[in-house]
């Protein structure tokens, strides 16, 4: 996992430094869009790795929710398993003791880690509409807007990654 964190760090640093240089030259938004797309794809790859690492530590193997070949499916499946038939607000209404019992019933293995991971997945979901907008603008060759939405997608991915690492720290007892 240290390697994962290092990769995320390098990704973030490269993304930030790209932004820094961008201000000093004539801006090629198409190139920036393409580059950001690559960063986002790589970040999604990293997030997939985090999901594959954390998922089996959060939910029982018997649920067959965690699938290495489908990390996004694993994440969404985990959320459904966590919530049961209710929504996330319902979990606020019950005591810690009851929550532990409810999660045990749902075969959730780590309460605190599960709540953090849920949030990470929520952030991940928010990157989709931004990328969709970016793709739409790119199709119209509106590269600046395409880049901006790709950038916004990245913001959500970063938040997802930071939460995911937090969840990982919790399940690993760091």
């Amino acid at each position, binding site marked *: 996992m240290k390697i994962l964190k290092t990769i995320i760090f390098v990704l973030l640093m490269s993304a930030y430094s790209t932004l820094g240089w961008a201000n000093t030259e004539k801006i090629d938004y198409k190139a920036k869009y393409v580059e950001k797309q690559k960063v986002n794809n790589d970040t999604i790859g990293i997030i997939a790795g985090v999901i594959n690492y954390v998922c089996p530590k959060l939910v029982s193997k018997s649920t067959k929710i965690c699938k290495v070949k489908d990390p996004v499916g694993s994440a969404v499946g985990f959320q459904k398993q966590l919530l049961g038939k209710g929504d996330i*607000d319902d979990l*606020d209404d019950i005591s810690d003791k009851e929550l532990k019992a409810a999660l045990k019933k749902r075969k959730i293995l780590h309460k605190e880690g599960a*709540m953090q991971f849920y*949030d990470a997945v929520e952030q991940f979901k928010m990157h989709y509409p931004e990328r969709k907008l970016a793709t739409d603008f790119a199709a119209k060759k509106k590269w600046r807007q395409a880049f901006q939405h790709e950038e916004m997608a990245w*913001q959500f991915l970063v*938040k997802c990654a930071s*939460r995911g690492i937090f969840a990982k720290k919790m399940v690993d007892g760091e």
Partner: protein
Amino acid sequence: MSKRATLKTFLSLITVLSLFSTTLFAESLKSIAKRRGLSDKDLIAAAKTYTPTGKKDEYLVFSSGGQSGHLIVYGVPSMRLLKYIAVFTPEPWQGYGYGEIEGMHRLKEGEIRGRKITWGDTHHPALSETKGDYNGDYVFINDKANPRVAVIDLNTFETVQIVKNPIFKSEHGSAVVTPNTEYVLEGAQYPAPYENKYVALTQENFNKVYRGGMTYWKFDKKKGRIDLKRSFTVELPPYMQDITDAGKSISYGWSFTNSVNTERYIGGYGNGNTKLKNRLANEAGMSEKDTDYMHIINWKKAEELFKKGKFKKTNGMPVISMKDMVAANALVLLPESKSPHGCSVSPDGRYIIVAGKLDTHATVFDFKKIKALIDAKNYASKDAYGIPVLDMKKTIHKQVQLGLGPLHTQFDKEKGIVYTSLYVDSSVARWNYLEGKLIEKLPIHYNIGHLITAEGDTVNPDGKYLIALNKLAIDRFNQVGPLHPQNHQLIDITAKKPMQLLYDMPLPLGEPHYAQMIKADKLHPKIRYKKKSFKHYVRPGQEKVERSGKSVTIHSTAIRSHYSPEVIEVRKGDQITWHITNVERAQDQVHGFGLDTYNIHGSIEPGETVTFEFVADKRGVFPFYCTEFCSALHLEMTGYFLVK
């Protein structure tokens, strides 16, 4: 060398190495202790309190914050500070009193005679109880300076109500709860006329018009609020009522309140008095008699009188007269050592321990004896107001000489064992109130006031820990100017072992008077707010700005790392209502909201919607931003509020 010999040599080497490393480690601990000047006793104390990262405390302490008007929360045994709860005074971090309407409304509730009060002198927190045990639902705290009581919901650790006493001009014996939190008690301190009018300070007026009292604030457990319409006050003589405790078990339905000036002395010492001249100082005049009075009130009977309408309203407060209370045999006086300060009911409700303050003794009164005398109307005399006075000697179980300046008492899990603070001695006395025997005394730092033990004023005390609440630490911490921090000292009171001082904790906020220590697992605080529970909840995507004449309503959301909307333009003079929902789910994703120049600041916790109201009365450009570090792009979480 044979294989066997090689193996033997190898094993010997390993043994020597392991012994060496063990010695090295032990030596290392020793060398640290030597370098830092720590004794074995210190190391044991450190081991008893050190709480590694990630480990939580067994108990939480709710301590008054004195002149800050706040309530302080910390953990035991780590003594780690966890929170200051804003109660009577504005507190910017929590956005209490800086434009957010809930906090503004709360502080407005505390206004007295139309005056904004921005300080409080919190003294005695009281955790809500069920059958005499803390239930972890609410904590109440009083303001001695401006007679008020606040309700803090332990679901959110936020102040949800402030009630002001409309007839008292100060108070002290508060907050105290009855065993099922039926009532929150508030006793007056410095006598004054109930009405808000001038009454010349003469001895005659003082005796006839100035009054003390005991207010019983009815607590509605379902609503979690004090019900003003079902609250009442019992009129009391101008005796400067002091510390109060509520009866429990066999003394359930009664309350007990000390007093410190049954002489009814009114002062006049020194030069410059405009009315009274060349008289003794209060401290002498108020200590003339050998005894003062404990007020024994049957609040169950008082409640009946209230329900029957036997009261007169003053400033909207129903007041039951002393005369009616005496007629119902619901108010009696019991002589106690002069100017006492502690008044503590034992876990079984049978004994009331009063510490002398100016006497070296603590007196243990037996409620069974008191009750028998009351039931038989066997009274020794009457006071100047016609209130029956019991014969002190007939009510005493034991009197024990403890030391100089005994003040407050708390109970242990072990039957009969109690702890009393000795202010002049600067020590804590461990003694047996059933047998009337002093066991040991532990010197503490200096100037001890109250003390607390774990759940030590409930029907089931836990023992284990005691905290001495010392005032102004003159030599324990680094000097930080002439005003010193207070010092809470943690003491191990494990049964049948000598008491051991474990830790000194400075509190640099105000003078904390009393505190209560509750088992942490009794508390069930909220982790995050339910978004839908807020009337003005703003859903993501439904952010907007609405205008109706000069009223502008802004519906915003906050999420890492942006507000939506980010740029808002209004006109000078517009009345602004600004709702912001934090749509985050992660429990540490708190966002702040600070608006330049307008003195607006709020804390928007996950799931919460807060509302600010203000008039855009300054033209210009005003950045707003998130004041709580929330993410890598936290600095970018900003916007402009433009007033043209």
